[in-house]
């Protein structure tokens, strides 16, 4: 079935087939272009499920490894090296799931230059999947930077009024962060003679002395991407200006690349520095949780509100990551998925409202649940999922993160998790305020009386997310089974240095 092609290659590059087909279509053939893109993304999703089928849960090892010599840099081998483990498998699946959903959401939202849009979108998928699978530092860097280009154009061409400002800001922020990372990658490579993740793991002592600097160089790139307070200001602008599909992918996947980077590289490669910096990063994460929630509450634009909520939610992920306990790190990985699902769905619904009314100001709405009952009910579920109601996905992630962080030996104090738990209250405040302002109360604006409820296509974009929201909320164990072995391995690796430190 794999036509002799390695499954990871297939899952990464299959969107290119769609790109190729679309290149040969005329720009006027919008329908054909859309269907080609959707079909490609769906096939990619199917391939990702096939990768999952080959994935062995219960082991921490890197699986389905693919390693071939690729380039030589001044005598140094750069390999085309990919693999998948518990940290990345769900990220790959999330990417492959959100891409077709995002594409389906553009059916009526994107009418202009559909061809270019779909090409960039599929290219973006290649980049994102590559980031999660790459195990060679240079290869990782190539994919990492590659994602910038399509996203830059998606915001800059199909965005809102201030799209150029937002696109440039997005590009410069990320670029500034990753340049230092590139420098660090090169230095590490020349010190050790390899760029391969697994070799570097074995030769950790060779660059252990300078790991503080390496940690910071990698960390800056990742912290900007997450984004952590106070490096977050590119995010609201990018989100507000990006088209809906762009926001879905931005929040759903691109931000996760930052958190994933911490887990994949910072923690195992620079464990002493990780332990040293963990409390500071945890403090920034907690500031992000509280601050993001407070700023969300003040927003009048729905999209901006959801954007700032991401700062708050990702704060939980970073906190869990640097609390370095089995529960907190597994919770963080799951919460990345959860955030992709719930925030993706939130952006989709906000986009649907925008398509109907061409505004995202909450004051332009009010009472629309009565007019659009299906949309109202689905929005309610998504809102509750985002605020971490038990029985839905968000709770499982938040609870395990907070529980794990509460007893973290690296952080050394329950205060971190205790203060972060306040975020649970604040999340209820800003999310319920949004739900109230938009969906509850009487219909005050005449135009809202004529709102159409969800179309079949729109329901189809939301249903897969809702299924997962319920599934993870009601029975999370299968997901933890995928994540947990790799996390336990990672945590024990880092904690062994903790023992050495003390």
């Amino acid at each position: 079935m794999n036509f002799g092609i390695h499954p990871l290659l297939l899952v990464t590059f299959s969107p290119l087939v769609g790109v190729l087909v679309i290149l040969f279509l005329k720009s006027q053939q919008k329908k054909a272009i859309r269907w080609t893109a959707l079909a490609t993304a769906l096939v990619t999703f199917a391939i990702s499920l096939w990768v999952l089928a080959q994935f062995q849960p219960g082991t921490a090892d890197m699986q389905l490894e693919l390693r071939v010599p690729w380039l030589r840099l001044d005598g140094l081998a750069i390999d085309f090296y990919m693999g998948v483990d518990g940290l990345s498998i769900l990220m790959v699946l999330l990417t492959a799931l959100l891409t077709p959903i995002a594409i389906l959401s553009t059916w009526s939202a994107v009418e202009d230059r559909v061809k270019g849009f779909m090409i960039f979108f599929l290219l973006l998928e290649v980049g994102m999947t590559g980031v999660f699978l790459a195990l060679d530092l240079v290869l990782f860097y190539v994919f990492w930077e590659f994602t910038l280009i399509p996203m830059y154009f998606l915001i800059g061409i199909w965005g809102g009024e201030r799209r150029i400002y937002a696109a440039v800001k997005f590009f410069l922020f990320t670029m500034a962060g990753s340049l230092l990372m590139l420098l660090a990658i090169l230095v590490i490579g020349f010190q050790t003679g390899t760029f391969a993740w697994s070799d570097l793991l074995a030769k950790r002592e060779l660059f252990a002395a300078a790991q503080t600097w390496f940690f910071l160089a990698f960390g800056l790139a990742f912290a900007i991407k997450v984004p952590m307070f106070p490096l977050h200001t590119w995010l609201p602008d990018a989100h507000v200006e990006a088209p809906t599909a762009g926001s879905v992918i931005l929040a759903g996947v691109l931000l996760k690349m930052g958190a994933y980077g911490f887990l994949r590289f910072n923690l195992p490669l620079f464990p002493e520095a990780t332990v040293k910096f963990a409390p500071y990063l945890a403090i920034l994460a907690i500031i992000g949780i509280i601050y993001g929630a407070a700023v969300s509450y003040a927003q009048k634009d729905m999209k901006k509100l959801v954007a700032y909520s991401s700062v708050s939610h990702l704060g939980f992920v970073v906190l869990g990551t640097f609390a370095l306990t089995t529960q907190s790190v597994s919770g963080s990985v799951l919460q990345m998925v959860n955030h992709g699902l719930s925030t993706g769905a939130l952006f989709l619904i906000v986009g649907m409202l925008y398509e109907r009314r061409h505004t995202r100001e909450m004051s332009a709405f009010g009472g629309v649940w009565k007019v659009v009952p299906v949309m109202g009910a689905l929005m309610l579920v998504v809102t509750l999922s985002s605020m971490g109601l038990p029985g839905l996905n968000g709770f499982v992630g938040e609870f395990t993160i907070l529980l794990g962080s509460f007893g973290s030996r690296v952080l050394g104090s329950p205060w971190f998790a205790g203060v972060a738990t306040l975020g649970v209250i604040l999340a209820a405040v800003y999310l319920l305020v949004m739900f109230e302002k938009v969906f509850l109360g009487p219909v005050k604006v005449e135009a809202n009386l004529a709102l159409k409820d969800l179309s079949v296509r729109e329901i189809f974009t939301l249903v897969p997310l809702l299924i997962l929201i319920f599934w993870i909320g009601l029975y999370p164990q299968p997901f933890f089974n995928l994540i947990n072995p790799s996390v336990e391995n990672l945590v024990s690796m880092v904690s062994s240095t903790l023992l050495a430190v003390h």
Partner: protein
Amino acid sequence: MSLNEIASLHPFFQLAPLVVFLPVLGLLINLLVGRRLGEKGIGAVASLATGGAFVVAVLLAVGLAQVSEGGTLTLANWITLGDLGVSWSFRIDTLSVLMMLVVSGVGTLIHIYSIGYMHSDVRHNEDPGRFRRFFVYLNLFIAFMMVLVSSDNFLMLFVGWEGVGLCSYLLIGFWFEKGADGIGNARAAKKAFVVNRIGDFGLLIALFLLFYNFGTLNFAEIFEKAPAVAAAAPGAIMAITLFMLLGVTGKSAQLPLFVWLPDAMAGPTPVSALIHAATMVTAGVYLVARSQALYFEVPAAQNVVMWVGALTALFAATIAVGQNDIKKVLAYSTISQLGFMVTAVGMGATVAGMFHLTTHAFFKALLFLGAGSVILGVEHGHAHAHTKEMEHGHDSFDPQDMRQMGGLRKRMPLTFIVYLIGALALAGIAPLAGFFSKDEILAAANEKSVGVYVVLTAAAFLTAFYMGRQLLMVFFGKPRSGASEKAAESPLLVTLPLVILALLSFFGGALNLPGSHLLETWLEHSLAEAAPGEFVLTVALISLGIALLGLLLAWLVYGRKPLFEKGQPDPLSRPLNGLFKALENKWWVDELYHAVIVRPYQSISQFSAGAVDQGVIDGLVNGMGSLVRSGAKAWRRFQNGYIRSYALTIVFGVVLVITYLVLR
């Protein structure tokens, strides 16, 4: 235990999961095909689902009567992560089954009542389509409540705990386009959820502390280890119990988090009866009762719980005296009665607390449903008297305002009789249910602390007084509006559950009569220490005397010279003057919270979003951008494309270099 193992204990025990799944089934049926079933069908499905859960609870009780230690049925492994292992298990013991019986028993009656009540309500509010939604929410509530009471660990309890909070949110905001300014109900719902989240924050912290001090969240293991952990780390148990108390004050509406419950009356009346009087709000009492083993280890925490309950009992009772909304009086009364229960479980008089929880579920559900019947009757009367009053311009009629009622005794005789029984039971008149349960609490308080005893007795006095006031204002005197003049008795579907609840309120005391102690022997299998409640004759006589005194005083103020018109000031407002104003305004607690919590948070949030985020942080970023740009602009002058200026620059450079070389 697996299904087979539990079945070998007693075959009925394996039915336990049905208490959750039957209501879930009911809501799924109504969600999927309810539209085709019609109102009767929807109501029947929902009521049968809850009734089925009641039957299962009865069977479990039968099983427990034979195998009194019960058992635990594990359904699924929910989360296993490192040393954290939580399963979804059903704990079948006398305490949980008692709660199941109360929830599904009272719940079924309220479901049946709701078929009649919501039939009118959805028409009165002009959206008959929402009938189905109501019953879906109700069944969801029963399911979550069952998860809460049947859990064998703190995490699943928390799942149910927040789940019922969600249902409360949905049902308070059921008419989300109604209320003050059209948004009042939605605001009340949000307030309930957020205030409860503050409590849930406390409960979450308690969960974390439990996990790290006990290594598990399982009830049985924690309670077993409690003495050992308490000996090793007394501070930890103290912290656990107090954070747990924060959760209790949220869900059971105690000081300082009680403020959401009065507003929750925005929900349809059956919701007030089921969720905000009989079941959900008692979850906090259940939690403390369940965690007795922890509370027994820290007497200081017990004292805190006890005093929180006692002060709430008195504080809320004072406010109830100054309310004119028939449901608001009952709401503050509920807060006050929950205070009694919390005091009881705080003192360690767990059986007395659970006893009062049960009888209160009967008579308070009865009172709320009775109030609902009154509201229906008055609305009916209003519709008939409508044409006349509408001529006076705007329609300011409020069917819940007791000042506009009066004389309903004659118009609604059946409602009057059952309401009278409920009111007397609440006031603590012998031999009704409330007398016995309240008396047990007072007797325990008398033994434990004189201060608490005095506070509770004062609250009991006020209880009798405000119930007397309500009875006299609603049912006696002359009708004070066209609506109450034309009010009509409610249909059978509404009154039948009232009659059943009235019987339960009348005879409910038999559950734990002095001498028989049925409930006591029932619960002793679940509770760490079930000290037998004593019957102290003097305490009983004093409380009965106090109750009669309260009723008498109410009659002196409101009965002797009944109110004659709706605009008349309350007879108490003159003698009590400023004090009555304070009661009417609920001691301005809402205003206080608004000033010290809500407004500051709003300012902080505005400040963070504006000055900090857009100003400082984004300002720095953009500042860096413009710095680069202006720097680049300045440098661009040199790149002007003229060869002569480049030549000049080169000459300038050469001169510099030579100067440097020469001067070196």
